[in-house]
């Protein structure tokens, strides 16, 4: 199977959906050529589809996210490009009170088929305002769906689904994943929301990871396998809807769970997952459930501080070892 990068996979998804449905359009800052987006995901699309479908906007997140909502309410299918998830605050009222709630408040009359594509994450020393992981914000707003692909295959399949769904989707990418290569079929495919992917099988410990952290978990899995410890790496792919069944099956098998994510620990997705496992897989848990997340600080600037905070394969392997040996 051919291998393409995460960003190429995203671009393919966008191109295919733009072609498939003329109601689809993109909106964002710097997304048209020659710039093609901060991470070059949309490069080449405006020459093909025109600047009336690849709409480049002023720096006006509140207004432009709002505009996407308005357009979605009246027959269009916008895909908004928020350059950095850290800017979500600028558009928060539209995200929180409008997009998420119009369907509900109108008693089901409306639907908001929009996708808010954005990216986050540490690793480039981009510091406090350009390196956050804020998926928990969207997770906590009823009305939003949340997807976080970790591979090119998942990215393409999930983005196509996101665009075709009739509900608002927060599609959260990771800045360090854009150049990762991975197998992606030539034939068209989609990935449904609410289906987790067991990226590695194992009996000794379940590791649930999202976005970039999945890659670290798989690397830890290799290291640990040489020591005779076999972890199962489960990638939920969508945080809501969440595939609890797969996760519970895994915990049932291993009895041990570590949730790893790059977002700050307090109130993160890990907290939600641990609570659900504690409640729904209670009888299968044989050791204290673990979270491995960034410490509760803003993202620091200096590279060594970032490394200190990023949840990497060494930290994951270390924690798994302790968990499997019964030291925790």
């Amino acid at each position: 199977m051919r291998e393409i990068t995460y960003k190429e996979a995203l671009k393919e998804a966008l191109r295919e959906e733009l072609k498939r449905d003329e109601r689809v359009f993109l909106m964002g800052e710097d997304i048209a050529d020659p710039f093609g987006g901060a991470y070059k995901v949309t490069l080449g699309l405006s020459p093909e589809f025109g600047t009336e479908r690849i709409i480049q906007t002023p720096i006006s997140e509140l207004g432009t996210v709002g505009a996407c909502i308005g357009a979605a309410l009246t027959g269009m299918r916008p895909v908004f490009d928020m350059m950095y998830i850290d800017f979500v605050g600028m558009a928060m009222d539209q995200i929180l009170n409008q997009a998420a709630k119009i369907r509900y408040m109108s008693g089901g009359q409306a639907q908001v088929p929009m996708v808010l594509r954005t990216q986050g994450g540490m690793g480039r020393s981009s510091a406090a305002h350009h390196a956050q992981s804020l998926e928990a914000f969207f997770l906590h707003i009823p009305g939003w769906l949340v997807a976080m692909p970790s591979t090119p295959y998942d990215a393409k399949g999930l983005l196509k689904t996101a665009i075709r769904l009739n509900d608002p989707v927060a599609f959260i990418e990771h800045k360090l994943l854009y150049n990762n290569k991975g197998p992606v079929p030539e034939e068209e495919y989609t990935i449904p929301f609410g289906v987790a992917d067991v990226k590695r099988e194992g009996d000794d410990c379940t590791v649930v990871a999202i976005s970039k952290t999945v890659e670290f978990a798989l690397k830890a899995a290799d290291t640990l396998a040489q020591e005779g410890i076999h972890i199962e790496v489960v990638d939920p792919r969508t945080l809501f809807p969440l595939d609890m069944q797969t996760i519970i099956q895994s915990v049932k098998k291993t009895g041990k769970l570590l949730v790893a994510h790059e977002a700050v620990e307090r109130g993160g997705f890990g907290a939600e997952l641990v609570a659900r496992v504690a409640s729904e897989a209670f009888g299968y848990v044989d050791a204290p459930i673990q979270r491995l997340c960034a410490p509760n600080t803003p993202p620091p600037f200096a590279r060594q501080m970032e490394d200190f905070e990023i949840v990497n394969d060494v930290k994951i392997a270390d924690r798994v070892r302790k968990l499997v040996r019964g030291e925790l």
Partner: protein
Amino acid sequence: MSKKSQSSAPKDLTREQLIAMFRRMLLIRGFEARAKQYFEAREIAGFLHLSVGQEAVSVGACSALRKDDYITSTHRGHGDVIAKGCEPKFAFAELFGRTTGYCKGKGGSMHIADFSQGIIGATGIVSGALPTAPGIGLSIKMRKTDQVAVCFFGDGATAEGGFHEAMNLASLWQIPLIFVCANNLYGLTQPWSKTAYQCELPRRAATYNMASACVDGMDVVAVNQAVREAVARARKGGGPTFIEAKTYRYWGHYVGDPGTYMPEEEQKEWRARDAIDSISRRLQEWGYTTPEEDQHIRADVDAELDAGIEFAKQSPLAEPESALTDVYSEFDVWGNPL
């Protein structure tokens, strides 16, 4: 009927249209009065923000629109939505939390919507719909129809960032959107003079290179004419317009607000120019109605409103569990596909 009066009748509006506007204004005022009554009797829950005094703005504007044109509204939206075509009985049902309400009891006073009539909804956040409205205009342009959209808001919203972003984008995109600002001189309890420094609202439009107008918001005909002009511009592809309609809200910000920050003198002055009294009087002056017909219209409105209340009271209460539905189109509240 003197010849003098006849000649002041607006030439571009028919008798039927003008009477319809009058009736609709009565409907709004009567609706608000009853809503206040039932709220104070604790039969309506939550908050009520009533628009009594501002009927001419809502009706004048909406009368310039087609059924397939869009409006967005505010927390003080009863007038706007009824002016656009909402029936009082279903609006009452919504306030009473019944299944027959426009939003099945899920929205309430501040969020009434009827998408079949292009009413994209009232919103509880001041300026909440402003960023959304240019998107509607954009959608119209993309779909290449000749629809237009009207975005209602008050003077209070013009201090919010969303107002400015919307104005900028509307102008940049040259979309068929009409900003109708009902300047009732108060944002919450703050008078307009304390919100903006020596500013006349249409000047704001100028900074966005947008066509603008300033009208007497107590004159339904004036409002209507200004909006019709803007609609025509929009339908032709001439881009957005900003209209300031100077008006006044008689009752406080919300039901329960004594409005002590509104000076008595000021209140008297505005009530003397009441929009309904004004159109009622003028209709008779123009010879379009007789005093008897006038009374008849009022009685008819009362009857409709009373029937509406009855209808709402008779309607079944929305089931408590229905709170869990319609969060998503494709999934239930637990994330299972529908």
